């Protein structure tokens, strides 16, 4: 055979540097700040939980690929990233078997049953999370009071701010916003630190890995709905607007609390299960924001961000029908 034969193929003959692996690697890098802050505040148990989730997801993927007789896709880091995200939305006090089951559910129920990467309709992390939450609500609500690393091992159980808000509207006035945004509040391992999530999310947007429309839409939707919900709250109407001193606190509180930030920047824009069209992605984000606050205010559950993402995932095919105008397309009768 002639060594000097030329290759012939279609254009383009150069490709960008982004691969599936590098894309998910950047995702993991972007998750890192929030995860590290979480580990700092919740310590050793949190680390074990996250590691168990990732390990369980990886083993499950290996088993799934053996059952399906397909090559394993662990090299693409997709599974690792999914496991990491699930670990970040588990409570630090979860018993050891919870992350193990969660990781397996992510892979089997969320990904492999649909045919692997690219095929699943809903965010597999949240599919697993909802399954866990419905099955073991007590274990999924085992929150700790955060304490800086090495300051003792006596963990005290705590309520999250959103739980307190359900019972008492004056939480809005009492909360220390600085602590909330830094992540010094009880909550899931990786979703408490608003600043760290924001840094990671902005990095993803700059690297053009997630569309900016989803987080912007989600935050706008949440702010709008939070203002509406708070100022129509009968408890506040009773109190009188003048007496209620929180005002802008409403916005900062709802943006910082619960799972909104991680849903807006990481879980919602997860590539496979999010829409692709410009307006579709924006409405997807707005839907997440609205759902979050609706559930927080009127729902029976504590936080609605994750349910919002799942609901909007289901609306994906509809949202992807909102296509932009094709440049140069001749429209009949125009």
């Amino acid at each position, binding site marked *: 055979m002639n060594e000097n034969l030329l290759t012939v193929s279609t*254009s383009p*003959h150069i*490709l960008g540097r982004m691969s599936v692996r590098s*894309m998910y690697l950047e995702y993991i890098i972007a998750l890192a700040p929030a995860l590290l802050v979480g580990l700092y505040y919740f310590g050793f148990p949190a680390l074990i939980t996250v590691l168990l989730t990732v390990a369980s997801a990886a083993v499950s993927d290996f088993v799934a690929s053996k059952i399906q007789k397909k090559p394993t896709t662990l090299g693409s880091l997709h599974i690792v990233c999914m496991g990491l995200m699930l670990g970040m939305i588990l409570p630090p006090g979860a018993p050891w078997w919870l992350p193990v089951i969660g990781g397996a559910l992510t892979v089997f129920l969320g990904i492999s049953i649909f045919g692997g990467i690219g095929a699943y309709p809903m965010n597999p992390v949240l599919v697993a999370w909802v399954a866990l939450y419905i099955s073991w609500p007590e274990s999924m609500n085992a929150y700790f009071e955060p304490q800086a690393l090495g300051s003792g091992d006596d963990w005290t159980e705590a309520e999250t701010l959103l739980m307190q808000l359900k019972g008492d509207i004056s939480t809005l006035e009492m909360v220390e916003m600085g602590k909330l945004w830094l992540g010094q509040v009880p909550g899931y391992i990786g979703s408490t630190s608003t600043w760290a999530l924001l840094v990671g999310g902005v990095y993803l947007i700059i690297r053009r890995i997630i569309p900016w429309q989803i987080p912007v839409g989600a935050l706008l939707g949440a702010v709008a709905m939070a203002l509406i919900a708070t100022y129509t709250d009968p408890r506040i109407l009773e109190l009188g607007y003048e007496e209620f001193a929180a005002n802008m606190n409403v916005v900062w509180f709802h943006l910082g609390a619960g799972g909104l930030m991680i849903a807006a920047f990481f879980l919602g824009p997860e590539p496979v299960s999010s829409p692709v069209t410009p307006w579709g992605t924006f409405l997807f984000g707005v839907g997440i924001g609205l759902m979050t606050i609706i559930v927080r205010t009127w729902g029976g559950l504590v936080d609605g961000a994750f349910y919002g993402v799942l609901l909007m995932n289901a609306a994906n095919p509809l949202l992807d029908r909102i296509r932009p105008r*094709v440049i*140069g397309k*001749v429209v009949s009768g*125009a």
Partner: protein
Amino acid sequence: MKLANLLKGIRLPRPPAAAPPVDLPAPEKVYLPLRQHRGAVAEAKVEPGEQVALGQVVGASEEFESATVQATVSGVVEAIVDTVDPAGQKVPAVVIKNDGADAWAEDSAMGESLTDPAGVKGTRPSHLLRRLREAGLVRAQVEGRPLHVDLSPPMAPQSYLYMTGIPVVRPVDTLIVSAVDADPPVCPNRSCLGQSIQELSVGVAALARISGAKRVILALPSGSDTAAIAAMAGPYEWEIASVSQTSYPFATDNFLVQSLTGREVPTPYGEPKDVGVVLQPMISAMDVGKVLMSGRPVIDRIFSVAGEVKNPQTFRVRLGTPISEVLAAAGGGPSRPGKIIVGGPMMGLAIFDPATPVTRETEGVFVQSAANVVAYADHPCIHCGRCVAACPVNLIPSELGKLCEFRMYEEAAYMDLMNCIECGCCAYVCPAKRPMVHFLRHGKTEVLAGRME
């Protein structure tokens, strides 16, 4: 530069500075394909063994969409053989063995010499057009059309426009001469910038005269030295526009028309002429100027060699020189050649025969070594939406790619598959390395084939 252009498409690295073209000595043998454009094959007008002079007609056709072929060296016709054109199609070619005399044919001078734009303005457009046709000029682009076809007014209303209620025949009022290379590392236009100003001025004036354009826009790459061009354009009130070289594909025809005039060229079957704009690359305008000034056909072509060769450079090459000889002049390609691409890396055609001759439709090659040939993957679409963000014509390439992969061609056509311009942005940004352009091209071919039945 529109804001939308910053968000859409892709950013390519800034191309290295371009040096002025270097003359390449005439080769031993030239291969002159009898079709160097889209359209009909010319008939050979010479026999093997015949002595031909420089500029002597060796192929011509009665067809309108056809260009005359002239001898580009003097010597003896060796044979008429089959060669391949850049698209890989067989085409007969006249082979001439160079005798080194470079003697011009006596009848090669066609009409008086026009040396300044004022002279051009005093000449009838039909006369200018006939001279271009005799010279056999072709728009420098693979599958480009002969220049006289490109410049003629539309012969009949275009039916698709007629049916959709768009004004059908719009007089041409704008001429754009673009010195921006659409596919940057291959830069014939940029390396000629500021060269042969007189030829350029005559050429632009002639193009404006023939097309009837009142407004002339010279599109120049941003950041280049344009003083000489500005001094030339000043007296004739030709406008100068600056166009970015790094935001791809916004230097291609339809996008240039849109960003410079605000008019949207209808796709897929429309062309800039439909919205009253004629667009030509600068090297075409210089060829026109050369023909009108010298009264002789153009026998060489500005040919840019980029990529993995020792000295990437732009050459002035005799038409019909095998590309392998041009590569040798550029210091030779890589030890294990991978691809030789006619045109640029984003939209060019990979050729399989390095002996493919330089023709009027080629403007340069991009060379890749075997190690750097990209590998597409058989990976499922991961629906990340990067292609949607990049697509300059607002398609949903991910969806189209899937439809075409699974043979749902009409469904893809319903989602505006036919409006794809095959710029390659979707494949460039795809993290799964899916062969997007391959899918879409295949789908388009299938749709057309299906509709023919």
